[in-house]
């Protein structure tokens, strides 16, 4: 399989490439962490695109059980059918619903399996998946069959660090921490998304962006995806350049700030800063 080198619209740093290639070649899960909006989930999409593999997404929620990834036995439906005298009730297989892991294991083409935000689930969730991810097989007790993957799928797992993951689970993964892109990387990312964008606009916008990130006490620091949205808005609105250059403290809030600041407390913080700046003058 070809090496992952990033794609036309995803800038991968060297360390990320090494981690991805190691995970793909050795077929071990890749655990990706990082600030929100640094492209953890997108990474799985891009790996799928780069390797030409179908992507199977499993979005984990706080109520998700490991078993749901394998299969679910709908006992309630069977009970109901039994009461109504439905013929289907005699075959238990009718009530087995395939989970995402099952799908990934039996996919005709080698897939990329994304387990998104694994830390959202219960603390035992990763442990419950250890065996399955290790051996890439599991048993369906109701029908006494074994589902095994012909070829180990590529597994990408993302985490937002809300909970600690168990050691036994971590030992089986490669790990990559996407750090917040520095200016050069950010420039490359912007170039990929907005080819031919005006250089001065980007540079001014990045100045404002990194300044906003530096403001202490911000509830949610704007991230890459927010910068991209903001740039798109600026382009759409045909914002004149001097608005960004405007160092008038009365206008400390950047134009179209809604794309950067996602929290009313943050907006208020900015207004307060603007107010204080005005008073100082």
């Amino acid at each position, binding site marked *: 399989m070809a090496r992952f080198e990033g794609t036309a619209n995803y800038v991968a740093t060297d360390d990320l490439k*090494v981690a991805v290639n190691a995970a793909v070649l050795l077929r071990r899960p890749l655990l990706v962490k990082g600030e929100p909006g640094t492209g953890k989930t997108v990474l799985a999409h891009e790996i799928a695109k780069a390797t030409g593999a179908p992507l199977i997404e499993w979005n984990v929620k706080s109520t998700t059980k490991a078993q749901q990834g394998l299969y679910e036995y709908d006992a309630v439906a069977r009970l109901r059918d039994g*009461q109504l005298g439905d013929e289907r009730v005699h075959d238990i297989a009718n009530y087995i619903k395939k989970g995402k892991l099952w799908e990934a294991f039996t996919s005709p083409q080698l897939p990329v399996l994304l387990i998104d935000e694994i830390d959202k689930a219960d603390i035992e969730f990763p442990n419950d998946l250890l065996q399955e991810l290790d051996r890439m097989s599991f048993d369906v007790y109701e029908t006494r069959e074994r589902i095994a993957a012909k070829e180990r799928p590529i597994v990408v797992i993302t985490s937002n660090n809300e909970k600690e993951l168990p050691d036994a689970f971590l*030992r089986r993964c490669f*790990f990559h921490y996407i750090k917040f892109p520095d200016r050069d990387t950010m420039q490359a990312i912007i170039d990929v998304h907005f080819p031919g964008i005006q250089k001065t606009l980007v540079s001014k916008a990045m100045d404002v962006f990194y300044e906003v990130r530096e403001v202490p*006490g911000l509830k949610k620091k704007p991230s890459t995806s927010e910068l991209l949205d903001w740039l798109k808005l600026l382009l759409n609105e045909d914002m004149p350049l001097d608005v960004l250059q405007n160092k008038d403290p009365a206008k400390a809030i950047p134009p179209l700030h809604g794309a950067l600041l996602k929290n009313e407390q943050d907006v208020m913080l900015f207004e307060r800063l603007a107010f204080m700046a005005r008073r100082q003058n």
Partner: protein
Amino acid sequence: MFFNFVDELRAAGIPASFKEHLVLLEALDKDVIEQTPEAFYYLSRATFVKDEGLLDRFDQVFNKVFKGLLTSYGQNPVDIPEDWLKAVAEKFLTPEEMAEIEKLGSWEEIMETLKKRLEEQEKRHQGGNKWIGTGGTSPYGNSGYNPEGVRIGGESKHKRALKVWEKREFQNLDNTRELGTRNIKIALRRLRRFAREGHLDELDIEGTIDGTARQGWLDIRMRAERRNAVKVLLFLDVGGSMDPFIKLVEELFSAASAEFKNLEFFYFHNCLYEGVWKDNKRRWSERTQTWDILHKYGHDYKVIFVGDAAMSPYEITHPGGSVEHFNEESGQVWMQRLAHVYPATVWINPVPEKQWSYSQSTKIIKELVGGNMYPLTLQGLDDAMRELTRKKH
């Protein structure tokens, strides 16, 4: 291969196991990476480090283990133009010094040494170029010249062109110290209250049998599932008389952050006043209003104070009693407000219980939290958690 490396990693507290070692060897065997030091660094990092808090430690170990091995590996030394060398030397050496050098040995000899030193700089790194360009910040420093030979900053770590792992970019992530927290963890588990909250997604067998018997038809009952729903506000006393206990408190804190989904922590000094802070370095610039906390977090939050409660009684009972600022309302008022909003409040005191009675402020605080003050011992934590669990908001 690399046994030494793994040993060093383990010694530094990175949980590198045999399994990971095998994975690394397998990856090298399968030619996952090109054979460059950087790629090897990235690969071993992805293999051994599973927590961004340990990345910085890994960088340090990597540097220690592979120092000197990788520099001479796979890289061509830089060719340094003769005239540039001369220019540099002239820039950093006074004419008198140059004369002295020449006295000590031939100019060529010294230039040779200088050249060698410069070749030790890593060629590929951009810093190397900067190093040349920004002559103003001299890499030679004051000791750049030495009659016994030309010594250049290349020896000293921070003046050399930095390799990736030497930049230590992840330094600020290393705030998770969880050493010897096992005991505390066990006690904190008591806090997990298995409240039934959330979606009805479990078959309630007893309810179903009961319902079916009553109705005469199959009456399926569902119920919410068990999960950990404990919400905690943690207030930590920092500074002043608390300093000897900081380590204990930090251990408690790092254990607690792993246990709960909803955990908020704040710092205060001695007694709770109108403001608390989240980052001790910015305690003056980034304060959170205590009112905001009372309004934001619901009554079902459980509050844990950690502090020695040793202070002047005035700091609690009188407005303006705080040692750090002028507080318009006394600490007592704030403690009462908090206790009113959060019935489940405990104070954990790292000072041995025997000494509590000697300090008047400890007694006052104990009263303010409804007598729920516990020592920082396993037993004390156990009792504190039991008290918190017992109280239904």
